[in-house]
């Protein structure tokens, strides 16, 4: 699964994207797995209310299932316009 990070999430984790081998059932499960790996993930995901997630480029929720998903993106609330 391709995992992408933007803005300060990218900066805290220290890379723009990575391939993750996971059996995580939901976005929340994936976050728990990543946080267990290294502190920089725990720092980036400390407050998920300050984060947004997109599954295959569609805004989604943190309890959404990951079955069939190829691309997960984490980022702060958007500031377009």
């Amino acid at each position: 699964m391709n995992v992408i990070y933007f803005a300060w999430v990218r900066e805290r984790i220290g890379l723009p994207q990575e391939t993750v081998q996971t059996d995580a059932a939901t976005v929340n499960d994936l976050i728990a797995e990543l946080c267990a790996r290294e502190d920089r993930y725990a720092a980036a995901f400390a407050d998920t209310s300050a984060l947004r997630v997109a599954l295959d480029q569609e805004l989604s929720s943190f309890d959404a299932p990951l079955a069939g998903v190829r691309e997960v993106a984490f980022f702060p609330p958007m500031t377009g316009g």
Partner: protein
Amino acid sequence: MTVRVQAEPFDAGAELDAFAQGRTDIGAVVSFTGVVRDTKGDLQEMLIEHYPGMTESAISKIATEAVQRWDLADVLVIHRYGPLAPGAPIMMVATASAHRAAAFEAADFLMDYLKSRAPFWKKEITGDGATWVAAKDADEDALKRW
């Protein structure tokens, strides 16, 4: 309907003149141009990051919804990414309609949704360092108007 996501500068005036050019079935054209604002007088540069692929599809989705909700002859959205200087145009929206209310409302709607639903992130570079621009609660609340 035209959606462009680009690093290159654009000329808002030239875009406005080209938009809905020669149409005689419209009575109203509204444009919005977003400009890099130097709030405290110390901004060196604004850096805009985006999510290639999702950006285009999210904007097209928003523009399509505008076309479905209002009687529009045409819609234009241009949004830049990368480094921008203070005073530079960041993005622009234009709407054309037979009537002014539809053109105004659709442009206002597009801006509210682009603000909170198009995957862009802004970083301000000043002499003191770099800061990510935080989303405002008011911008999220603005979506409830529609």
